[in-house]
């Protein structure tokens, strides 16, 4: 079964842009691409987050748990975007059927 494509450009409170392109299947993340002009250290951690999100229910508490674990276990530092922004960007994307921009 093909998932449905969702897209959303989210303006983070820190001023940066989070661009989410996700495929949803049965209320869960099938695959997700997160891009934008924010900063994350270490830089190679973003694919790890995208992988960790696969299979996660598109519910605030589930997303918050996974993203919290990502920051904690990977000792990730972010600038211009917070874990809360990422949760909101993903939730906003899950409600959007039409590609942004």
């Amino acid at each position, binding site marked *: 079964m093909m998932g449905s494509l969702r897209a959303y*450009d989210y*303006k983070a409170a*820190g*001023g*940066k*842009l989070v*661009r989410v392109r996700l495929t949803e299947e049965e209320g869960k993340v099938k695959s997700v*691409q*997160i*891009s*934008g*002009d*924010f*900063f*994350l*250290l*270490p*830089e190679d951690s*973003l694919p790890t987050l995208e992988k960790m999100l696969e299979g996660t229910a598109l519910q605030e508490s589930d997303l918050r748990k996974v993203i919290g674990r990502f920051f904690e276990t990977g000792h990730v*530092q972010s*600038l*211009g975007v917070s874990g809360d922004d990422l949760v909101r960007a993903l939730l906003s994307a899950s409600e959007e059927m039409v590609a*942004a*921009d």
Partner: protein
Amino acid sequence: MFERCSLRVRRWWQLTETWRLIDLEYRDNPFLNLAVEEAIPRMVGEGKAPNTVRLWHNSNTIVIGCFQSALLEVDFDACKETGTTVVRRFTGGGAVYHDAGNLNYAISLKKSHPLVPESDLQLVFQKLSEGTVQGLRSLGVQAEFQPINDIQVNGRKVSGAAGSIRWGAIFHHGCILVSSDLAILGKVLNVPKIKLAEKNVASVQKRVTTVRNELGRDVSTREVQTAIVHGIEASYRVRLEEDELSKEELALAEDLYLSKYRRPEWNLKP
């Protein structure tokens, strides 16, 4: 009195360290330019190179941040029309446009350098923009650091920075719009509408400025380069001494060029 003065001079001298100044550039090969940009902090972090400032230029190029989607950020038709190359850097942040009227600077310091003792990227941007701000002010441009990573003049961006803390190094680089062609810049970057709306301006051209616009006269990147060198020396109490990359650094840059920066898989990641 004399003794007190001489003591002060001695203290000043003792505080002064020497950093290496590199002006190696490959104007017509932005891929190699970005490979050199990565090779330097790697070697500084390993203790195989001294703290370094690099000043350099690119010909028409869009440099996108490492987390950006090339497909979303770049207008490829406009790039083709204007002969603009797209290359991805290893640091985060937003897309910038480089041409011969743009001066790039990069500062690589050994991690835990007293200027930025903590691993805090915001502090890196703030501290390592100071030399550029001071250099621009010495030219008469009323530049100010604007968090997170910009230098602005009257609310318009004249320089953007990016950086990282990795490989045992602190790295900060930025581009200064000296006399860049803002019309091309407006064409080749797809600035998302949400970003422009937030800044309350209609186009990318209206939220950026150049040193030339601010001074109201022609100014060369060479003149700005001299001012930035002096700004860095004065801000951080360092002496910049011109030098060259070591053979090992050049070999690393070439490796990075071949394995990463000249590859579409790296530059054009969707």
